[in-house]
Every structure is written in C-alpha cells, then in structure tokens.
C-alpha cells in the first residue's frame, strides 16, 4: 500500500507517540493485557459495506457504499507529557481484516498472543507480521490448567523465523506484561539497528 504524506513539520514541542499492536485469536487475553498496563479509551471506527453485500436498495450500476460504525478500544500509556505509547488490539474476526493495514501502519512492533491449547489461532497474525516485516514477539498467555510448554516448543510449533522472541506471560499481572513490552521494544531496536547496518550493502549470496 502506498500513501502520500503530509510534510513533516519541525514543531516547537510536538509530543512523540509509539504504536504497538496486540494480536492473537479470540479470547486469548488481548483486552486483559492492554487493560493491565494502560488506560483504556473508547474509539469508534467504521466498516465499509457495499450495497451488493446488503442486497437491499439496489441501485443498478451505482457503486454505492455504506458504513456501519464499529466500537473498539485502545490503550494509552502516558509516560510523560511528550511521550506516549498506544496499544491497539487487532480485531480477530475475518471481516475486520481491512483494518489491519491501518492499525499496523507506522507501528513500532507487535505482540502475538498465543494460547497453547489453540496455537493455530495465531498463525494468521504471525504470517501477517512476518510478511509485512513488522518486528514482533510471541507472548504465550499461561492460563490456569493449560499445558505448560517451553518457549522453544512454541518456537518450533509456530515455525517462527529464528531470533523471534517467545516469552511466557500472565496477562493479568503488570510486571509480566511490562516484561512482554520490554522484550518487544528490545527486539525492535535490535532489528532496526541490524537493518541500518545492512543498508547499502549487497545481500549475502545464497
């Protein structure tokens, strides 16, 4: 997707903002994780529907579109007046895929939450971020009674690119969530400096 940008303006004091995404299957604990560490704010967004899919009010030959409003939340951590982090949970249902690019655009990284009882639920998110080149880590939410796996097992089961961090977490506990976010940001820094070192150099053969 290509976007045209507004010119970046040198401002007196413009606040800096970082965005991260929290992805994973339905019921894996995305909302819990965001609520544990940040202030929850409501947001209305909208879903585009074409009249064709509605099947009423048919105006032949006119490509009319209509929208329906969707309610979602986001999390905000205000570190300082001039530094804020935003956490967006990615909607799980297929009909909301259109929102992912908008949410992922400019994100510094993503957390893919996994439940070891339903690992396949996070395949789509892993594929998406790998394809897009967004730095991401996998956070295994340790539910009571769920079989405990080692991070290495999850790494193999999800067939992750080597070097993708896998951490165990409890989305209800602040220190645990903090550890997840610190791991993500460290990973994003490592990837960013690695990319910079490779810029302008030929790719290794093979």
């Amino acid at each position, binding site marked *: 997707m290509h*976007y045209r940008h507004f010119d970046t303006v040198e401002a007196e004091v413009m*606040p800096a*903002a*970082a965005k991260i995404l929290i992805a994973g299957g339905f019921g894996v604990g995305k909302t819990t994780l965001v609520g544990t560490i940040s202030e929850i704010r409501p947001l209305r967004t909208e879903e585009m529907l074409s009249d064709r899919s509605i099947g009423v009010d048919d105006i032949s030959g006119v490509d009319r579109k209509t929208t329906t409003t969707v309610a979602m939340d986001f999390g905000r951590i205000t*570190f300082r007046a001039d530094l804020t982090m935003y956490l*967006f949970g990615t909607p799980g249902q297929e009909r909301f895929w259109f929102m992912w690019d908008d949410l992922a655009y*400019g994100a510094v990284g993503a957390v893919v939450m996994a439940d070891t009882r339903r690992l396949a639920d996070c395949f789509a998110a892993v594929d998406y971020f790998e394809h897009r080149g967004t730095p991401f880590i996998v956070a295994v939410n340790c539910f009571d009674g769920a079989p405990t796996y080692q991070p290495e097992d999850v790494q193999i089961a999800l067939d992750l690119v080597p070097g993708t961090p896998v951490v165990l977490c409890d989305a209800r506990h602040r220190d645990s969530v903090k550890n997840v*976010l*610190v791991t993500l940001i460290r990973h994003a820094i490592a990837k*960013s400096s690695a990319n910079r070192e490779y810029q302008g150099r030929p790719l290794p053969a093979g």
Partner: protein
Amino acid sequence: MRPYAMTKGRTEPASGAYIGLIDVVAAVAHLRLPADARLSREHRRVLSHCRQPITVVDLASDIDLPVGVVRVLLSDLSQYGALRVVATSREPVSHERLLRDVLDALQAL
C-alpha cells in the same frame, strides 16, 4: 445524525494524504481562513479540540466521532491551513531514538 452526513458523504480525505492513527495534529495559532473556507459545526469542534497538539485517535475518542469522519474533517482543515498534521516519525535514526526513549520509560514504570 449518520456519521458521514458530517462530511457530506465523503469517506476519504480531500487531499488524498494518509493521516495515521497516531499522527499528531495541532491547530495553527492566529488563524486566517481563506475567504472560501466553509467550516461546519463539526469542523469547529475538531479545531477547538486541537489547540494543544493531540493524536488523531485521542481526538476521535475525546469528541466521540468515528475516526474516519475525523480524518476527513482534519484533511479539510489542513487544506484550509487551519491545522498542521505531523506524521509519526518513520525515519530510521529518529525511529531508534523513539524506541530507546520508550524502552527507558517502560523500564521506569
């Protein structure tokens, strides 16, 4: 009122420029609008909420309008020269500085 009635049915920003969810918008001080500028009540509401710099999502949340509607209104206001839209930095060096600032701040939580 149906949300897009506020934008006269437009669902895309007039200028075609993408406005990111966490781009920061700020009303321009000492504003002189072009003679042909037509500001609706919603335009004025948006403008009055960004006297201090604010992100697009916080603005949409504060005034309880769908984010797509807010983007169209912001784009109009930007074209009138009434506000500035500052894109979140994506330049590698300042991106890394942002990441390190966030890391320090997270660890200090």
